[in-house]
C-alpha cells in the first residue's frame, strides 16, 4: 500500500502542494486536475524525483526515499515528457533502460519484443526514433514503463499525442494492468479515466479536493445539472447567470448543459452528472454566474 502522509511541497515562497493525504491500493487511480494544479508535483514525489518539503510517502509502512532502489525496483514511470537518444531504435533505447532497471539482456530482449508488440510498434523495432511521430514516441514511453513488470505504475499525461484508436487500446491495456497492481494516471482529459478508474483524485488550491469513485464524485452534483434549449440571443445572458458545462447547436437553437443549485425552472431537464461536469464546475474560471 502506498500512502502519502501530510505531504507538502514548497519552492521558496511558492507552495505547489499542501498537506496532501492519500492512500493507494491495487487498482487504477486517476489524478484529475487542470494544468498547473500540482499533478506533476505529486506524481514526481511518488516517483522519488522530488522530495516533499514536509510529510512523507510510505510504501508498506516504509519511507520510499529510504527504501531507495527497493522502491524504484517496483516502479514503472512515464513522465509527461521524456528524453531519448534520437539515433537509438526503440529496441536499443529499451535495452539501455532495461540495464538501468537491472534486467538482464536476454530477458530484456524477450520483454522488449513483447511490449513493443503490445503498443503496436513491432514493425519499427529497429528504426531510429528520430523518425517517429509524437504518438509513436509516447508508445515507446508506455512500453518502457512496463519493462520491469512494475507493481506501481505511474503515468503522467500518458495519452498526450495518441490518436483516439490508440487511446482506446491504451485504456484496455491499463484496465488489464490494474488487475494486480497499482496504476496511477495523471491527466486533465476526463475521458481517459472516467470509464476505467477505480478512484479519481482531484486537487484544488494545492489541496486534495476529492478521492473517491467516479459515481461518488458525480453524486456531489446530483440534482444540480440541467439541460435546456434556449435562443442564440439569450446565450450571453445565460452564460453570465449560470455555470455552463456545454453548448450544442440543434435546429437553430442551443442546448445548454449547466449547473444550478437552487429551485429549477419548469422547462429545465435534470440530467445525471458526469465526471466532466464536476471537473468543469470545480475548476471553473472567473464564472460570474450564480450557482
Amino acid at each position, binding site marked *: 500500500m502506498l500512502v502519502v502522509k501530510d505531504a507538502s511541497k514548497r519552492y521558496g515562497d511558492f507552495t505547489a502542494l499542501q498537506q496532501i493525504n492519500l492512500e493507494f491500493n491495487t487498482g487504477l487511480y486517476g489524478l484529475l486536475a487542470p494544468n498547473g494544479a500540482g499533478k506533476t508535483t505529486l506524481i*514526481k514525489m511518488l*516517483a*522519488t*524525483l*522530488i*522530495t516533499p518539503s514536509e510529510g512523507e510517502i510510505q510504501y508498506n509502512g516504509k519511507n520510499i526515499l529510504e527504501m*531507495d*532502489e527497493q522502491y*524504484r*525496483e517496483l*516502479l514503472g*514511470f512515464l*513522465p509527461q*515528457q*521524456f*528524453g*531519448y*537518444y534520437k539515433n537509438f531504435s526503440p529496441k536499443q533505447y529499451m535495452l*539501455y*533502460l532495461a*540495464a*538501468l*532497471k*537491472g534486467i538482464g*539482456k536476454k530477458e530484456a530482449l524477450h520483454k522488449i519484443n513483447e511490449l513493443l508488440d503490445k503498443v503496436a510498434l513491432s514493425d519499427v523495432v529497429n528504426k531510429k526514433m528520430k523518425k517517429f511521430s509524437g504518438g509513436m514516441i509516447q508508445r515507446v514511453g508506455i512500453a*518502457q514503463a512496463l519493462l*520491469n513488470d512494475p507493481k506501481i505504475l505511474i503515468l503522467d499525461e500518458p495519452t498526450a499525442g495518441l490518436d483516439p484508436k490508440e487511446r482506446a487500446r491504451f485504456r484496455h491495456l491499463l484496465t488489464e494492468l490494474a488487475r494486480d497492481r497499482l496504476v496511477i494516471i495523471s491527466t486533465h482529459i476526463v475521458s481517459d479515466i472516467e470509464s476505467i478508474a477505480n478512484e479519481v483524485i482531484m486537487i484544488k488550491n494545492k489541496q486534495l479536493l476529492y478521492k473517491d469513485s467516479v459515481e461518488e464524485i458525480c453524486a456531489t452534483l446530483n440534482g444540480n445539472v440541467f439541460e435546456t434549449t434556449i435562443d442564440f440571443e439569450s446565450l450571453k445572458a445565460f452564460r453570465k447567470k449560470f455555470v455552463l458545462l456545454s453548448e450544442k447547436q440543434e435546429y437553430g437553437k442551443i442546448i445548454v448543459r449547466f449547473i444550478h443549485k437552487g429551485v429549477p425552472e419548469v422547462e429545465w431537464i435534470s440530467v445525471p452528472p458526469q465526471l466532466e461536469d464536476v471537473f468543469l464546475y470545480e475548476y471553473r474560471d472567473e464564472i460570474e454566474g450564480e450557482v
Partner: protein
Amino acid sequence: MRMLWNEVKKIFMWKMMLLLLFINSILYFLLIEFHIDSFPNGSGLYSYNVGVEMVDKYGATMDEEEFIDFKKMYEAKVEETNRYLQSREDFVAEGIDTYDKFTAYDWWNPSQEARALRDDVFLGNKIDLFWELQERHGLIEFHNRRKRVPDVLSDKERQRFEQLIEEEKFGVYTDLVIQNFKSFIANVGVAILFSVVLVISSTIIKDRSRGLLLLQYTSKKGRNLFKTKLLAGYIATFIIITSLLAVYFSVYSLNRTSMFFKVRVNTFIANESWFDPTFFQFIMICVAAIYLIGFIFATLSMVFSSRVPNMVSLIGIQIPFVVGFLIFGLNPLLPNMILIWTPKWLAPMSYGLMILLSALIVIFLWKREKKMDILQ
C-alpha cells in the same frame, strides 16, 4: 559493468570522434608539426650530431678526463679545418689560413672578399666543419663557465646551484634535445587539454538537457547513475589521453632522441633543475602531469556539465579556465615544473591542491545530486 559500458559508449559517439580527429589534426599542424619536422633545425643539426657523438662515446655523464678527450677532438677538427683553409688559395690570399685566424678576424668590418669567403663556407658550399666547430666551441665555452653562479638568485636557487656544482652535475650536453621535448610536450598538453574538455563536457549535460534524468533516476539504478557517469567520464579521459599520447609519442619517436634517455636533466646545458631525473624519467613525469591535468579538467568539465543550462554556456564558462591555465599554468606545471626558475613547491602544491579540490567538488556534486529535485 553493463551500465558503465553504456555510458562510455555514449561518450565515444562517432560524431564526437570525428570532431576530436579534426581538432587534433588542426592542433597538430598548428602547434606540434614544427617540433617534429624541423628537428634538428638549421645549425641545430650539428649540435644534435655532436650531442649524439658525445653520448655514444662518453655515456650519460662526462667526467673531466672525458672532457679533455672532447677538447682533443675539437683540436683535431681545428687541425682538419686548418688543412682545408690552407688548401683554399682564396683564403690564403686573404691571410686566413688557420681556424684561429678565421675566428679572430674582425667580422664586424670584413673585406668584401672575406665576407664572400665566409658566406661560401657557411652557406654556399656549406662546409660541415665550420658549423660543427662552432657547436663544439660553444660546448667547451659552457664547460669553462660551468662553476659560475648567476648573480640574481633567491637563496634556495643559489643553494641548488651550489649543490649541483658540488656534486659536479654540470650542463655539458646540448640543450637542443630537451628544449625540443619541452616545446613538444607543452603543445601536446594543449592538444590533450582541448580534447578532454571537448569530449567530456557533454557527458552529463546531454542527458540532463534532453530530460533523460526522469527515466534514469526513477529506474532501479536511480541516482547512482550519476556516479557511473562520472566514472565513465574518467575512463573516457584515460582512453583519450592514452590514445593521443600514443599517437603523439609515435610521432615524437621520429626525432630520434632515445640515445639521450639516460642523460640526467641537469646534464643538459641551461637546464638546472630541483631534481635530477634522467631524460626518460622526465618524459614519464611529464606524461604523469598530462594525465593529472587531463583528469582535473575532466572533473571541471563534468562539474560545469552538471550545473549549466546548455552547451553554449558550458563552452563559455570553461574558456576562462582553459585559457587561464594555458597562459599561467601550462609551462610552470608541465615542461618547466622541475626547472630551477620555477619555485620548487609550485608543481607539487598546485597539483595537490587541484586534486584535493577536484575530490571535494565530486563529493559535493554527488551529495547534491542525491537530494536534488528533478524538475525537468
